[in-house]
Protein backbone atom coordinates (compact mmCIF):
# COMPACT_ATOMS: atom_id res chain seq x y z
CA UNK A 1 0.00 0.00 0.00
CA UNK A 2 3.03 2.27 0.00
CA UNK A 3 2.38 5.75 -1.36
CA UNK A 4 -0.88 5.10 -3.11
CA UNK A 5 -4.23 5.35 -1.50
CA UNK A 6 -6.64 2.54 -1.45
CA UNK A 7 -9.62 4.85 -1.81
CA UNK A 8 -10.34 4.84 -5.52
CA UNK A 9 -12.97 7.06 -7.07
CA UNK A 10 -15.35 4.11 -7.27
CA UNK A 11 -15.20 3.75 -3.49
CA UNK A 12 -15.38 7.41 -2.60
CA UNK A 13 -18.27 7.94 -5.04
CA UNK A 14 -20.33 5.10 -3.65
CA UNK A 15 -19.54 6.28 -0.13
CA UNK A 16 -20.54 9.90 -0.77
CA UNK A 17 -23.45 9.31 -3.12
CA UNK A 18 -24.84 5.89 -2.34
CA UNK A 19 -27.67 5.04 -4.71
CA UNK A 20 -29.27 2.44 -2.51
CA UNK A 21 -28.96 4.11 0.88
CA UNK A 22 -32.54 4.89 1.80
CA UNK A 23 -35.50 3.50 3.69
CA UNK A 24 -37.65 1.01 1.79
CA UNK A 25 -41.38 0.69 2.30
CA UNK A 26 -41.91 -2.60 0.49
CA UNK A 27 -39.53 -5.31 1.52
CA UNK A 28 -39.80 -8.95 2.40
CA UNK A 29 -36.90 -9.03 4.83
CA UNK A 30 -34.54 -6.74 6.76
CA UNK A 31 -31.50 -7.56 8.78
CA UNK A 32 -29.01 -5.61 10.85
CA UNK A 33 -25.30 -6.19 10.30
CA UNK A 34 -22.82 -4.92 12.86
CA UNK A 35 -19.05 -4.82 13.28
CA UNK A 36 -18.90 -4.06 16.98
CA UNK A 37 -15.21 -3.20 17.02
CA UNK A 38 -15.50 -0.61 14.24
CA UNK A 39 -18.97 0.67 14.89
CA UNK A 40 -20.14 -0.18 11.36
CA UNK A 41 -23.85 -0.70 11.69
CA UNK A 42 -26.16 -1.19 8.72
CA UNK A 43 -29.66 -2.47 8.10
CA UNK A 44 -30.08 -4.26 4.81
CA UNK A 45 -33.55 -4.49 3.25
CA UNK A 46 -34.42 -6.87 0.42
CA UNK A 47 -37.61 -7.34 -1.53
CA UNK A 48 -37.50 -10.93 -2.76
CA UNK A 49 -40.25 -12.29 -5.01
CA UNK A 50 -40.22 -15.79 -6.45
CA UNK A 51 -36.55 -16.18 -5.66
CA UNK A 52 -35.58 -12.94 -7.35
CA UNK A 53 -34.15 -9.89 -5.56
CA UNK A 54 -36.53 -7.28 -6.98
CA UNK A 55 -35.17 -4.41 -4.95
CA UNK A 56 -32.87 -3.64 -2.06
CA UNK A 57 -31.60 -0.80 0.11
CA UNK A 58 -29.54 -0.14 3.19
CA UNK A 59 -29.46 2.40 6.02
CA UNK A 60 -27.07 2.99 8.88
CA UNK A 61 -23.55 4.28 9.27
CA UNK A 62 -19.97 3.18 9.11
CA UNK A 63 -16.66 3.70 7.40
CA UNK A 64 -16.33 4.44 3.69
CA UNK A 65 -15.43 0.84 2.92
CA UNK A 66 -18.48 -0.65 4.61
CA UNK A 67 -20.83 1.88 3.02
CA UNK A 68 -19.38 1.75 -0.47
CA UNK A 69 -19.20 -2.03 -0.44
CA UNK A 70 -22.87 -2.38 0.55
CA UNK A 71 -23.94 0.05 -2.16
CA UNK A 72 -21.86 -1.69 -4.83
CA UNK A 73 -23.24 -5.03 -3.74
CA UNK A 74 -26.82 -3.88 -4.16
CA UNK A 75 -25.99 -2.58 -7.64
CA UNK A 76 -24.82 -6.07 -8.46
CA UNK A 77 -27.51 -8.24 -6.93
CA UNK A 78 -30.72 -6.31 -7.62
CA UNK A 79 -32.54 -8.14 -10.41
CA UNK A 80 -30.69 -11.39 -9.85
CA UNK A 81 -31.92 -14.61 -8.36
CA UNK A 82 -31.08 -15.49 -4.81
CA UNK A 83 -28.81 -18.27 -6.07
CA UNK A 84 -26.89 -15.91 -8.33
CA UNK A 85 -26.53 -13.44 -5.45
CA UNK A 86 -25.13 -16.16 -3.23
CA UNK A 87 -22.69 -17.18 -5.94
CA UNK A 88 -21.50 -13.56 -6.20
CA UNK A 89 -21.11 -13.50 -2.43
CA UNK A 90 -18.87 -16.55 -2.63
CA UNK A 91 -16.93 -14.99 -5.46
CA UNK A 92 -16.46 -11.80 -3.45
CA UNK A 93 -15.12 -13.76 -0.49
CA UNK A 94 -12.81 -15.63 -2.83
CA UNK A 95 -11.52 -12.34 -4.25
CA UNK A 96 -10.78 -11.09 -0.76
CA UNK A 97 -8.77 -14.22 -0.04
CA UNK A 98 -6.81 -13.39 -3.18
CA UNK A 99 -7.96 -16.55 -5.00
CA UNK A 100 -9.92 -15.08 -7.91
CA UNK A 101 -8.86 -15.07 -11.53
CA UNK A 102 -9.08 -11.82 -13.50
CA UNK A 103 -12.23 -13.05 -15.28
CA UNK A 104 -13.89 -13.79 -11.96
CA UNK A 105 -12.99 -10.33 -10.68
CA UNK A 106 -14.49 -8.84 -13.84
CA UNK A 107 -17.72 -10.56 -12.97
CA UNK A 108 -17.78 -8.65 -9.70
CA UNK A 109 -17.74 -5.40 -11.67
CA UNK A 110 -17.22 -2.40 -9.35
CA UNK A 111 -16.83 -4.66 -6.31
CA UNK A 112 -13.46 -5.47 -7.84
CA UNK A 113 -12.34 -2.08 -6.45
CA UNK A 114 -12.06 -3.86 -3.11
CA UNK A 115 -9.68 -6.54 -4.35
CA UNK A 116 -6.71 -5.13 -2.43
CA UNK A 117 -8.48 -5.08 0.90
CA UNK A 118 -6.56 -8.20 1.92
CA UNK A 119 -3.56 -5.90 2.43
CA UNK A 120 -5.53 -4.27 5.24
CA UNK A 121 -6.71 -7.25 7.28
CA UNK A 122 -8.36 -5.02 9.86
CA UNK A 123 -10.70 -3.68 7.16
CA UNK A 124 -11.80 -6.95 5.64
CA UNK A 125 -14.79 -7.14 7.93
CA UNK A 126 -15.89 -3.68 6.78
CA UNK A 127 -15.81 -4.76 3.15
CA UNK A 128 -17.74 -7.97 3.76
CA UNK A 129 -20.38 -6.54 6.14
CA UNK A 130 -23.05 -6.00 3.48
CA UNK A 131 -22.28 -9.28 1.73
CA UNK A 132 -22.29 -11.28 4.93
CA UNK A 133 -25.59 -9.74 5.97
CA UNK A 134 -27.17 -10.45 2.58
CA UNK A 135 -25.96 -14.03 2.60
CA UNK A 136 -27.44 -14.55 6.07
CA UNK A 137 -30.76 -13.18 4.80
CA UNK A 138 -31.05 -15.26 1.67
CA UNK A 139 -29.82 -18.48 3.22
CA UNK A 140 -32.68 -18.48 5.72
Amino acid sequence: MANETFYSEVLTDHNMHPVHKHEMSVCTCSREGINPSCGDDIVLNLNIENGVIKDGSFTGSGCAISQASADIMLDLVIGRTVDEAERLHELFMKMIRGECSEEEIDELEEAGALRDISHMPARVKCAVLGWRTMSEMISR
Partner: protein
Amino acid sequence: MNLNERNYKTDFPAFDAYPGLAYLDNSATTQKPGAVIDAVRQFYREENANPLRGLYGLAVKATEAYESARIAVRDFIGAKSEREIIFTRNATESLNLAAYSYGRAFVNEGDEILVTVSEHHSNLLPWQLLAKEKHARLCFLECTPDGEYTPEMLKAALTPRTRIFAAAQISNVFGRLNPIKEFAELCHANGTVIVCDGAQSVPHIPVNVREIDVDFLAFSGHKMLAPMGIGVLYGRESLLEKMPPFLSGGEMIEYVTRENATYAELPHKFEAGTVNAGGAVGLHAAIDYIGKIGFREIESRENTLTRQLIEGMRDIPHVHIIGSDKPEEHHGIVTFTIDDVHPHDIAAVMDSDGIAVRAGHHCAQPLHKHLGVMSTARASIAFYNDSGDIEKFLGCLKTIRRRMGFGE
Protein backbone atom coordinates in the same frame (compact mmCIF):
# COMPACT_ATOMS: atom_id res chain seq x y z
CA MET B 1 10.80 24.44 16.19
CA ASN B 2 13.67 24.74 18.58
CA LEU B 3 13.81 21.12 19.58
CA ASN B 4 17.15 20.13 20.94
CA GLU B 5 19.40 19.01 18.10
CA ARG B 6 19.64 15.46 19.37
CA ASN B 7 18.02 12.90 17.08
CA TYR B 8 16.66 10.26 19.42
CA LYS B 9 15.35 8.10 16.60
CA THR B 10 18.88 6.80 16.06
CA ASP B 11 18.52 5.02 19.43
CA PHE B 12 15.58 3.01 18.07
CA PRO B 13 16.28 0.18 15.59
CA ALA B 14 12.68 0.28 14.37
CA PHE B 15 13.51 3.54 12.61
CA ASP B 16 16.44 1.89 10.84
CA ALA B 17 13.96 -0.60 9.47
CA TYR B 18 11.34 2.09 8.69
CA PRO B 19 13.27 5.33 8.26
CA GLY B 20 10.34 7.34 6.94
CA LEU B 21 7.73 6.13 9.40
CA ALA B 22 5.94 8.84 11.39
CA TYR B 23 5.06 6.69 14.36
CA LEU B 24 2.32 8.54 16.22
CA ASP B 25 0.73 5.67 18.12
CA ASN B 26 2.85 5.86 21.23
CA SER B 27 -0.09 5.64 23.60
CA ALA B 28 -0.77 2.16 22.27
CA THR B 29 2.84 1.10 22.60
CA THR B 30 6.22 2.75 22.15
CA GLN B 31 9.11 1.61 20.01
CA LYS B 32 12.01 0.05 21.90
CA PRO B 33 15.50 1.52 22.12
CA GLY B 34 18.50 -0.64 21.27
CA ALA B 35 19.56 -0.46 24.93
CA VAL B 36 16.39 -2.32 25.96
CA ILE B 37 16.59 -4.90 23.18
CA ASP B 38 20.23 -5.55 24.03
CA ALA B 39 19.54 -5.93 27.75
CA VAL B 40 16.87 -8.56 27.13
CA ARG B 41 19.17 -10.39 24.74
CA GLN B 42 22.00 -10.24 27.23
CA PHE B 43 19.79 -11.70 29.95
CA TYR B 44 18.79 -14.68 27.85
CA ARG B 45 22.34 -15.24 26.63
CA GLU B 46 24.18 -14.91 29.89
CA GLU B 47 21.88 -14.83 32.90
CA ASN B 48 19.06 -17.18 32.10
CA ALA B 49 17.88 -19.63 34.76
CA ASN B 50 14.64 -19.82 36.69
CA PRO B 51 14.89 -16.95 39.15
CA LEU B 52 14.00 -17.33 42.84
CA ARG B 53 14.31 -21.11 42.70
CA GLY B 54 17.74 -22.38 41.88
CA LEU B 55 20.60 -22.79 44.26
CA TYR B 56 23.37 -22.54 41.72
CA GLY B 57 25.33 -19.60 40.45
CA LEU B 58 23.40 -18.94 37.26
CA ALA B 59 20.06 -18.98 39.07
CA VAL B 60 21.45 -16.53 41.59
CA LYS B 61 22.45 -14.27 38.69
CA ALA B 62 18.95 -14.48 37.21
CA THR B 63 17.42 -13.69 40.59
CA GLU B 64 19.70 -10.72 41.01
CA ALA B 65 18.82 -9.39 37.58
CA TYR B 66 15.12 -9.74 38.32
CA GLU B 67 15.25 -8.25 41.81
CA SER B 68 17.46 -5.37 40.77
CA ALA B 69 14.78 -4.47 38.23
CA ARG B 70 12.35 -4.27 41.13
CA ILE B 71 14.65 -1.88 42.96
CA ALA B 72 14.90 0.24 39.83
CA VAL B 73 11.09 0.44 39.61
CA ARG B 74 10.88 1.27 43.31
CA ASP B 75 13.21 4.20 42.88
CA PHE B 76 11.63 5.26 39.58
CA ILE B 77 8.23 5.81 41.21
CA GLY B 78 9.49 6.74 44.65
CA ALA B 79 8.02 3.79 46.54
CA LYS B 80 9.08 3.26 50.13
CA SER B 81 10.00 -0.37 49.71
CA GLU B 82 10.56 -2.93 46.97
CA ARG B 83 7.99 -5.04 48.80
CA GLU B 84 5.43 -2.66 47.29
CA ILE B 85 6.43 -3.43 43.68
CA ILE B 86 4.62 -6.37 42.08
CA PHE B 87 5.53 -7.44 38.58
CA THR B 88 2.59 -8.34 36.34
CA ARG B 89 2.10 -8.70 32.60
CA ASN B 90 0.67 -5.23 32.02
CA ALA B 91 -1.49 -2.48 33.47
CA THR B 92 -4.59 -4.57 32.81
CA GLU B 93 -3.35 -7.44 34.95
CA SER B 94 -2.25 -4.98 37.64
CA LEU B 95 -5.73 -3.46 37.79
CA ASN B 96 -7.31 -6.91 37.86
CA LEU B 97 -5.03 -7.86 40.73
CA ALA B 98 -6.19 -4.83 42.70
CA ALA B 99 -9.85 -5.56 41.94
CA TYR B 100 -9.77 -9.29 42.52
CA SER B 101 -7.54 -9.35 45.55
CA TYR B 102 -8.27 -6.10 47.37
CA GLY B 103 -11.76 -5.61 45.99
CA ARG B 104 -13.05 -9.10 46.66
CA ALA B 105 -11.78 -9.02 50.22
CA PHE B 106 -12.91 -5.54 51.16
CA VAL B 107 -15.96 -4.58 49.10
CA ASN B 108 -19.32 -5.72 50.39
CA GLU B 109 -22.93 -5.65 49.34
CA GLY B 110 -24.29 -2.13 49.14
CA ASP B 111 -20.84 -0.55 48.97
CA GLU B 112 -19.96 1.82 46.15
CA ILE B 113 -17.13 1.73 43.66
CA LEU B 114 -16.53 5.00 41.85
CA VAL B 115 -14.82 5.21 38.46
CA THR B 116 -14.50 8.05 35.97
CA VAL B 117 -16.50 7.84 32.76
CA SER B 118 -13.30 8.15 30.72
CA GLU B 119 -11.55 5.10 32.14
CA HIS B 120 -9.91 2.66 29.78
CA HIS B 121 -11.86 -0.62 29.75
CA SER B 122 -8.98 -2.11 31.74
CA ASN B 123 -9.82 0.17 34.64
CA LEU B 124 -13.57 -0.26 34.23
CA LEU B 125 -14.36 -3.92 33.59
CA PRO B 126 -12.61 -5.35 36.68
CA TRP B 127 -14.69 -2.99 38.80
CA GLN B 128 -17.86 -3.70 36.85
CA LEU B 129 -17.40 -7.43 37.45
CA LEU B 130 -16.54 -6.89 41.09
CA ALA B 131 -19.65 -4.77 41.60
CA LYS B 132 -21.83 -7.47 40.02
CA GLU B 133 -20.27 -10.22 42.09
CA LYS B 134 -20.54 -8.31 45.36
CA HIS B 135 -23.85 -6.60 44.66
CA ALA B 136 -22.05 -3.32 45.09
CA ARG B 137 -22.95 -0.18 43.14
CA LEU B 138 -20.73 1.00 40.33
CA CYS B 139 -20.92 4.80 40.18
CA PHE B 140 -19.49 7.14 37.54
CA LEU B 141 -17.77 10.46 37.85
CA GLU B 142 -18.75 12.46 34.76
CA CYS B 143 -16.33 14.85 33.11
CA THR B 144 -16.77 18.25 31.47
CA PRO B 145 -16.74 18.27 27.65
CA ASP B 146 -13.05 19.21 27.95
CA GLY B 147 -12.35 16.04 29.89
CA GLU B 148 -11.80 17.81 33.17
CA TYR B 149 -12.38 16.36 36.62
CA THR B 150 -11.98 18.66 39.59
CA PRO B 151 -11.58 17.87 43.30
CA GLU B 152 -14.98 19.53 43.83
CA MET B 153 -16.56 17.08 41.41
CA LEU B 154 -15.01 14.16 43.22
CA LYS B 155 -15.99 15.54 46.61
CA ALA B 156 -19.61 15.69 45.52
CA ALA B 157 -19.51 12.11 44.26
CA LEU B 158 -17.90 10.47 47.29
CA THR B 159 -20.31 8.97 49.83
CA PRO B 160 -19.74 7.19 53.13
CA ARG B 161 -20.11 3.93 51.19
CA THR B 162 -17.46 4.67 48.54
CA ARG B 163 -14.88 1.95 49.12
CA ILE B 164 -12.80 2.43 45.99
CA PHE B 165 -12.16 5.25 43.54
CA ALA B 166 -10.44 4.21 40.30
CA ALA B 167 -9.08 6.88 37.96
CA ALA B 168 -6.40 7.34 35.36
CA GLN B 169 -3.76 9.93 36.08
CA ILE B 170 -3.75 10.78 32.36
CA SER B 171 -6.68 9.72 30.17
CA ASN B 172 -5.72 7.88 26.99
CA VAL B 173 -8.37 9.84 25.08
CA PHE B 174 -8.11 13.39 26.48
CA GLY B 175 -4.47 13.32 27.50
CA ARG B 176 -5.44 15.50 30.41
CA LEU B 177 -3.64 15.23 33.76
CA ASN B 178 -6.01 14.65 36.64
CA PRO B 179 -5.32 16.19 40.06
CA ILE B 180 -4.56 12.78 41.56
CA LYS B 181 -2.87 14.11 44.66
CA GLU B 182 -5.94 16.15 45.59
CA PHE B 183 -8.12 13.16 44.72
CA ALA B 184 -6.08 10.96 47.05
CA GLU B 185 -6.46 13.44 49.91
CA LEU B 186 -10.23 13.54 49.45
CA CYS B 187 -10.43 9.76 49.20
CA HIS B 188 -8.38 9.17 52.32
CA ALA B 189 -10.40 11.68 54.31
CA ASN B 190 -13.43 9.65 53.22
CA GLY B 191 -11.93 6.25 54.05
CA THR B 192 -11.80 5.42 50.32
CA VAL B 193 -8.98 3.54 48.64
CA ILE B 194 -7.69 5.19 45.45
CA VAL B 195 -6.51 3.10 42.52
CA CYS B 196 -4.58 5.07 39.92
CA ASP B 197 -4.10 3.91 36.34
CA GLY B 198 -0.70 5.28 35.41
CA ALA B 199 -0.45 3.60 32.00
CA GLN B 200 -0.34 6.97 30.19
CA SER B 201 1.32 9.07 32.89
CA VAL B 202 4.31 7.05 34.12
CA PRO B 203 5.97 7.03 30.67
CA HIS B 204 5.68 10.78 30.19
CA ILE B 205 5.86 12.68 33.48
CA PRO B 206 7.70 12.05 36.75
CA VAL B 207 5.34 10.12 39.03
CA ASN B 208 6.13 9.74 42.71
CA VAL B 209 3.74 7.54 44.65
CA ARG B 210 4.65 9.07 47.97
CA GLU B 211 3.92 12.52 46.66
CA ILE B 212 0.60 11.72 45.00
CA ASP B 213 -0.13 9.30 47.85
CA VAL B 214 -2.24 6.81 45.90
CA ASP B 215 -2.93 3.35 47.33
CA PHE B 216 -2.36 1.51 44.06
CA LEU B 217 -0.66 2.53 40.83
CA ALA B 218 -0.77 0.36 37.71
CA PHE B 219 1.32 0.72 34.55
CA SER B 220 2.69 -1.22 31.58
CA GLY B 221 6.32 -1.56 30.53
CA HIS B 222 5.55 -1.64 26.82
CA LYS B 223 4.19 1.92 26.83
CA MET B 224 7.49 3.16 28.30
CA LEU B 225 10.06 1.65 25.92
CA ALA B 226 10.20 -1.76 27.66
CA PRO B 227 9.13 -5.11 26.18
CA MET B 228 5.54 -6.27 26.05
CA GLY B 229 4.51 -8.66 28.81
CA ILE B 230 5.92 -6.81 31.82
CA GLY B 231 3.86 -4.46 33.96
CA VAL B 232 3.78 -3.16 37.49
CA LEU B 233 1.35 -2.83 40.32
CA TYR B 234 2.51 -0.58 43.10
CA GLY B 235 0.52 -1.14 46.29
CA ARG B 236 0.76 0.49 49.68
CA GLU B 237 2.46 -2.07 51.88
CA SER B 238 -0.13 -1.99 54.65
CA LEU B 239 -2.85 -2.87 52.11
CA LEU B 240 -0.84 -5.53 50.29
CA GLU B 241 -0.14 -7.19 53.63
CA LYS B 242 -3.79 -7.80 54.34
CA MET B 243 -4.78 -8.82 50.81
CA PRO B 244 -5.27 -12.47 49.85
CA PRO B 245 -3.25 -13.84 46.91
CA PHE B 246 -4.53 -13.20 43.40
CA LEU B 247 -3.12 -16.15 41.44
CA SER B 248 -1.77 -19.15 43.25
CA GLY B 249 0.72 -21.88 42.54
CA GLY B 250 4.48 -22.11 42.49
CA GLU B 251 6.82 -19.40 43.70
CA MET B 252 4.27 -17.64 45.91
CA ILE B 253 4.21 -20.03 48.86
CA GLU B 254 6.10 -20.72 52.03
CA TYR B 255 4.60 -24.01 53.12
CA VAL B 256 2.09 -26.26 51.46
CA THR B 257 0.27 -29.21 52.99
CA ARG B 258 -2.53 -31.24 51.43
CA GLU B 259 -5.15 -28.89 52.76
CA ASN B 260 -3.44 -25.60 53.39
CA ALA B 261 -0.70 -23.21 52.44
CA THR B 262 1.08 -20.27 53.90
CA TYR B 263 2.14 -17.63 51.48
CA ALA B 264 5.42 -16.09 50.65
CA GLU B 265 6.34 -12.64 51.83
CA LEU B 266 5.59 -9.57 49.77
CA PRO B 267 5.92 -9.06 46.91
CA HIS B 268 6.28 -12.74 45.95
CA LYS B 269 2.87 -13.54 47.41
CA PHE B 270 1.45 -11.88 44.30
CA GLU B 271 3.82 -13.34 41.72
CA ALA B 272 2.67 -16.89 41.11
CA GLY B 273 4.57 -19.09 38.67
CA THR B 274 7.74 -18.43 36.74
CA VAL B 275 8.19 -14.72 36.32
CA ASN B 276 8.98 -12.66 33.23
CA ALA B 277 12.55 -11.97 34.24
CA GLY B 278 13.62 -11.01 30.72
CA GLY B 279 10.81 -8.47 30.62
CA ALA B 280 11.79 -7.08 34.02
CA VAL B 281 15.38 -6.72 32.83
CA GLY B 282 14.09 -4.87 29.77
CA LEU B 283 12.02 -2.59 31.98
CA HIS B 284 15.10 -1.91 34.09
CA ALA B 285 17.02 -0.92 30.96
CA ALA B 286 14.11 1.31 29.86
CA ILE B 287 14.12 3.06 33.24
CA ASP B 288 17.87 3.61 32.97
CA TYR B 289 17.48 4.95 29.44
CA ILE B 290 14.70 7.32 30.52
CA GLY B 291 16.84 8.37 33.47
CA LYS B 292 19.69 9.30 31.16
CA ILE B 293 17.47 11.51 29.04
CA GLY B 294 15.54 12.88 31.97
CA PHE B 295 11.90 13.85 32.26
CA ARG B 296 12.76 17.50 31.84
CA GLU B 297 13.93 16.79 28.29
CA ILE B 298 11.14 14.28 27.64
CA GLU B 299 8.41 16.66 28.75
CA SER B 300 9.92 19.61 26.98
CA ARG B 301 10.14 17.78 23.65
CA GLU B 302 6.69 16.25 23.98
CA ASN B 303 5.15 19.61 24.88
CA THR B 304 6.82 21.37 21.96
CA LEU B 305 5.61 18.71 19.53
CA THR B 306 2.10 18.67 20.99
CA ARG B 307 1.91 22.43 20.56
CA GLN B 308 3.06 22.19 16.94
CA LEU B 309 0.50 19.46 16.36
CA ILE B 310 -2.48 21.19 17.93
CA GLU B 311 -1.72 24.60 16.48
CA GLY B 312 -1.45 23.02 13.05
CA MET B 313 -4.70 21.10 13.46
CA ARG B 314 -6.59 24.20 14.56
CA ASP B 315 -6.06 25.74 11.11
CA ILE B 316 -7.52 22.80 9.22
CA PRO B 317 -11.25 23.07 8.50
CA HIS B 318 -13.53 20.20 9.53
CA VAL B 319 -11.01 18.84 12.06
CA HIS B 320 -12.17 18.68 15.67
CA ILE B 321 -9.95 17.99 18.65
CA ILE B 322 -11.49 16.12 21.57
CA GLY B 323 -10.86 17.73 24.95
CA SER B 324 -9.04 20.89 25.88
CA ASP B 325 -7.93 23.39 23.25
CA LYS B 326 -4.74 24.03 25.23
CA PRO B 327 -1.76 22.00 24.01
CA GLU B 328 -0.25 21.81 27.51
CA GLU B 329 -3.30 19.89 28.68
CA HIS B 330 -2.77 17.03 26.21
CA HIS B 331 0.52 15.37 27.23
CA GLY B 332 1.15 14.24 23.69
CA ILE B 333 -2.30 12.69 23.21
CA VAL B 334 -4.49 14.32 20.56
CA THR B 335 -7.76 12.60 19.78
CA PHE B 336 -9.76 14.04 16.89
CA THR B 337 -12.45 13.61 14.28
CA ILE B 338 -12.86 14.88 10.73
CA ASP B 339 -16.36 15.76 9.51
CA ASP B 340 -17.88 13.02 7.31
CA VAL B 341 -14.80 10.76 7.45
CA HIS B 342 -14.85 7.62 9.52
CA PRO B 343 -11.75 7.34 11.79
CA HIS B 344 -10.83 3.97 10.26
CA ASP B 345 -10.65 5.66 6.88
CA ILE B 346 -8.49 8.42 8.40
CA ALA B 347 -6.05 5.82 9.74
CA ALA B 348 -5.99 3.97 6.41
CA VAL B 349 -5.19 7.11 4.40
CA MET B 350 -2.52 8.07 6.94
CA ASP B 351 -1.05 4.58 6.69
CA SER B 352 -0.71 4.94 2.94
CA ASP B 353 1.38 8.07 3.62
CA GLY B 354 3.59 6.30 6.18
CA ILE B 355 1.93 7.66 9.30
CA ALA B 356 0.79 5.40 12.13
CA VAL B 357 -2.21 6.60 14.14
CA ARG B 358 -4.87 4.80 16.10
CA ALA B 359 -8.57 4.81 15.24
CA GLY B 360 -11.56 3.37 17.02
CA HIS B 361 -12.96 3.76 20.49
CA HIS B 362 -9.55 3.42 22.21
CA CYS B 363 -11.00 0.96 24.72
CA ALA B 364 -13.20 3.71 26.13
CA GLN B 365 -16.68 3.01 24.79
CA PRO B 366 -18.63 4.59 27.66
CA LEU B 367 -16.64 7.79 27.15
CA HIS B 368 -17.37 7.88 23.43
CA LYS B 369 -21.03 7.48 24.22
CA HIS B 370 -20.78 10.28 26.78
CA LEU B 371 -19.14 12.51 24.15
CA GLY B 372 -21.70 11.51 21.53
CA VAL B 373 -19.20 10.19 18.98
CA MET B 374 -18.97 6.63 17.68
CA SER B 375 -15.24 6.56 17.33
CA THR B 376 -12.28 8.85 16.96
CA ALA B 377 -8.75 8.93 15.61
CA ARG B 378 -5.75 9.61 17.82
CA ALA B 379 -2.20 10.80 17.33
CA SER B 380 0.10 10.26 20.30
CA ILE B 381 3.62 11.55 20.69
CA ALA B 382 6.79 10.33 22.34
CA PHE B 383 9.99 12.31 22.89
CA TYR B 384 11.70 10.54 19.99
CA ASN B 385 9.24 11.99 17.50
CA ASP B 386 10.40 15.10 15.71
CA SER B 387 8.82 18.07 14.03
CA GLY B 388 9.14 16.29 10.67
CA ASP B 389 6.69 13.65 11.94
CA ILE B 390 4.23 16.35 12.91
CA GLU B 391 4.60 18.15 9.57
CA LYS B 392 4.00 14.91 7.75
CA PHE B 393 0.90 14.25 9.83
CA LEU B 394 -0.48 17.75 9.27
CA GLY B 395 0.29 17.58 5.57
CA CYS B 396 -1.66 14.37 5.24
CA LEU B 397 -4.49 15.54 7.49
CA LYS B 398 -5.14 18.48 5.17
CA THR B 399 -5.67 16.14 2.21
CA ILE B 400 -7.91 13.53 3.78
CA ARG B 401 -11.30 15.01 3.01
CA ARG B 402 -10.29 15.63 -0.57
CA ARG B 403 -8.92 12.13 -0.95
CA MET B 404 -12.16 10.73 0.42
CA GLY B 405 -14.04 12.64 -2.25
CA PHE B 406 -15.20 15.63 -0.18
CA GLY B 407 -14.36 19.27 -0.71
CA GLU B 408 -11.42 20.59 1.30
